[in-house]
């Protein structure tokens, strides 16, 4: 014994922990059994034992996982636990560290769900990048759901209430039971082939995991994935996440909220538009008023008042210049008048008739009244007329002597 290695308790517990943690099977495992000694500690961690007729297994579920459980486990529940094995070194106690737990009847479904989710995720079905944007105001909504039940009533009445002018096309399907997944997929493909709707809602009301199962089938996921029309998925309650929810462009917590996501609230849009109209009107009035104020301010400005004064001054100058001009014109006219009078006076002096008084006479031929100024005009024995200051006399030419010859 002396030449073999001696371990401390801690060392060997560590080693066993190492072995367990590196075991492929034990690091990801499903175990079914019946719960006993279930205790939810104040820390939020859950401690319990899984047992069957012959054996027991200590289990712990930490707060983070325990808080996500969709049901409250109790002693006697038959469950399937997913988790990994490890060892609690202090007690040398190996345990199952539970990560998730579901009631046992649903165990196989749960596994199928996990597997399909992994597969479709790898195929890119859930990629955010390929999610389609929902239309802002659809003209028509397609609904793929059961024609009976609360879901379809809620969807139709909420769409009608929010946006009454939207057309609704219901493609009635069985949402559970044999072949339900094919009907749902057919509904999605029908709307794609017809292209008569802008968005579609697929879903159903709440139910057990088995009842919701059709929405976890690959057939439905494929139809959603291939749809050209945006799909809103609304399956069960807020806590239910189906494969259809992950694949859809938008996941709604419930059918009612799917209807709210699908169409806008007309009333609130209307009041939005009216509000914009109001802001438009007040803005333009404010705008124009601000210009008015500016114009008033500018017109009160000094520059303008100076300009006004300048114009007044110029007007005054113009007036006095006008008066001056008038005065000058009058003078010119007056002067000219004097000149004219003088000239007329001179003309009076030059008037030959005025000389008649001083002993001169005007001699004209009697026959034609021609004024005779030269002896050459005279002919012997013709009759002449002699005009003097106070009358006329007739005379006959009895001799002509031309001195110029």
């Amino acid at each position, binding site marked *: 014994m002396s030449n073999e290695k001696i371990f401390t308790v801690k060392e060997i517990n560590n080693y066993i922990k190492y072995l367990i943690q590196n075991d492929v099977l034990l690091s990801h495992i499903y175990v079914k059994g019946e719960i006993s000694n279930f205790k939810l500690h104040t820390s939020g961690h859950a401690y319990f034992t899984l047992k069957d007729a012959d054996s027991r297994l200590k289990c712990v579920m930490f707060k983070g996982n325990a808080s996500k459980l969709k049901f409250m486990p109790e002693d006697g529940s038959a469950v399937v636990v997913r988790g990994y094995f490890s060892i609690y070194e202090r007690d040398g106690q190996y345990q199952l560290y539970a990560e998730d737990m579901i009631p046992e009847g649903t165990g196989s479904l749960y596994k199928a769900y996990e597997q399909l989710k992994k597969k479709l995720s790898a195929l890119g079905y859930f990629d955010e990048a390929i999610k389609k944007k929902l*239309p*802002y*105001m*659809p*003209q*028509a909504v397609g609904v793929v759901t059961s*024609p009976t039940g609360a879901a379809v009533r809620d969807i*139709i009445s909420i769409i*009608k209430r929010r*946006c*009454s*002018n*939207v*057309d*609704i*096309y*219901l*493609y*009635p399907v069985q949402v559970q039971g044999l072949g339900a997944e094919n009907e749902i997929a057919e509904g999605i493909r*029908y709307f794609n082939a017809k*292209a008569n709707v*802008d968005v579609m809602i697929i879903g159903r009301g709440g139910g057990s995991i088995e009842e919701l199962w059709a929405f976890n089938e690959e057939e439905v996921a494929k139809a959603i994935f291939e749809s050209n029309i945006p799909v809103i998925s609304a399956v069960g309650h807020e806590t239910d996440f189906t494969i259809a929810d992950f694949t859809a462009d938008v996941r709604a917590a419930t059918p009612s909220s799917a209807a709210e996501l699908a169409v806008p609230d*007309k009333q609130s*849009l*209307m009041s*939005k*538009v*009216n509000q*914009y*109209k109001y*802001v*438009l009107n007040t*803005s*333009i009035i*404010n*705008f*124009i008023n*601000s*210009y008015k104020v500016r114009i008033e301010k500018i017109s009160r400005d000094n520059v303008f008042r100076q300009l006004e004064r300048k114009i007044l001054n110029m007007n005054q100058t113009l007036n006095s210049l006008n008066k001056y001009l008038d005065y000058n014109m009058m003078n010119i006219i007056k002067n000219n008048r004097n000149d004219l009078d003088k000239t007329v006076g001179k003309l009076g002096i030059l008037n030959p008739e005025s000389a008649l008084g001083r002993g001169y006479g005007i001699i004209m031929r009697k026959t034609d009244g021609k004024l005779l100024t030269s002896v050459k005009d005279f002919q012997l024995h013709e009759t002449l007329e002699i005009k003097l200051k106070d009358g006329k006399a007739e005379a006959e030419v009895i001799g002509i002597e031309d001195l110029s010859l």
Partner: protein
Amino acid sequence: MKGNFSFEQALKRLEEIVEILEAGNISLEESIKIYQEGINLSKLCSGMLEEAEGKVMAIMNNGEQIGEFSINQIREA
């Protein structure tokens, strides 16, 4: 599929115009121009919202033929 995009566009442009007008740093001429545009858009939007009542139809599969029936017809039947 008709026209659902134009409502969104009209509303978006209307929002832009309201912002521009509220900011107010444009010419008077420009502001009157876009005010007109805004009023027209608001009329367009209101008009779209006041469209006629939509129909509610169910798709029925009678053997080989798929038809659309109004929900009221189905309830009466």
